[in-house]
């Protein structure tokens, strides 16, 4: 059973995308923890460790992704958690590239098919357990 956490760091309240992904992953047979909106990186990282999730998805539409994502990655590392992190939202191509260089496994923009996300999430988990 794959356990995923979908979290929304920062101050934007646009959670439709996060909810659609959470629902799609649920329908793909995963156990999905949704944290709700306006979470701090610390809340997200601690929750991900406590819940021992296999993969973490961050949804950001505020434009603050270059501040928030590295902070979450750093905190996870600090806590000794090796959890693959993917990001969804409005992320410019050059930022997406930088985020991947920092260790984010994938960045999804608008129009991504939910089926594709579900399939890839399964792959991330397989790779991280390998």
């Amino acid at each position, binding site marked *: 059973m794959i356990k995923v956490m979908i979290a929304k760091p920062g101050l934007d309240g646009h959670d439709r995308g996060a909810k659609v992904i959470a629902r799609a992953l*649920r329908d793909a047979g995963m*156990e*999905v*923890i949704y944290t709700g909106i306006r*979470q*701090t990186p*610390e809340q997200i990282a*601690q*929750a991900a460790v406590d819940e021992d999730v296999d993969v973490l998805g961050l949804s950001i539409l505020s434009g603050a992704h270059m501040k928030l994502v590295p902070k979450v990655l750093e905190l996870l590392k600090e*806590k000794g958690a090796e959890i693959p992190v993917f990001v969804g939202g409005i992320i410019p191509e050059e930022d997406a590239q930088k985020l991947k260089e920092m260790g984010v496994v994938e960045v999804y923009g608008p129009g991504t098919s939910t089926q594709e996300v579900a399939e890839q999430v399964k792959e991330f988990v397989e790779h991280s357990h390998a």
Partner: protein
Amino acid sequence: MREDELINGMKARDRKTLAKVLSLCENFPDKANVLLAKLEKNNAHVVGLTGSPGVGKSTLMNSILNEMKDRKVGVIVVDPSSPFTHGALLGDRIRMQSHATSKNVFIRSFASRGALGGLSPSIYEACDAFEAFGMDNVIVETVGVGQSEVDVKNVADTVAVVLSSDGGDEIQMMKAGLMEIADIFIINKSDNPRSQILLSRLKAVMAMGKKDVPIFLTNAITGEGVREVVKAFDERFHELKDTNLLYEKRKERLVHHVKASLRRELDDLVDKVEIEIPDFLKLKSLVLNELCKKRE
């Protein structure tokens, strides 16, 4: 993580180890039982919060945690698994994320994974794990239940049934099942004027029976009335300890734990058996034989 690492981590009260042990409880409960038997456990007060979907159980949990600030609290929140895809959306955390970074609070979400009583099949292991971690309190929130999901009474020392107005007339409250298992009633959303009507109806129904169950009114969002609820929990725990009822409760819990564990083993066996001839009696004796082989 290896078993000795898990044991040492649990003894050192390492949070990440507890997270791993809870995963073991969820995915390999038999292994978890063996591991937990090697650890010392304290008796935490295990409280069950149950009630229909949307009465405010998770929000109430959040304000209960606010009141329990100085204690070590383990929280188990359960949401339903899909009978079709086995997936689950675990959303109870949303209401209590302000406690995600509390040093003393540990919240863990469980999916019901086919269990029909409103809890997770690994609930006994999970409670044991929290007790082995030295928690003062363990609070279990069931899935939003109907009238007959009453398994929480098997694991909790104290069951709080949460109600809100608009739950139907007094006949609904006279039915067997959920309403019977309450050690404490909490009428939430007390700002709704209809909660006074619910209170008088509940009192009238309780007067027909023999059990005297205290009733509390709360507004989980503002926290009004929650301090009194926590006080009632504590008083009841003292009473349970003083009267030795706690010992009886723990014996019952152990019996249910064994039953749950055996049922799980039996389910696995039946699922694995290959049906060559579709014959009930033969299949049953085949499974029984397999079960006996496991006794070593």
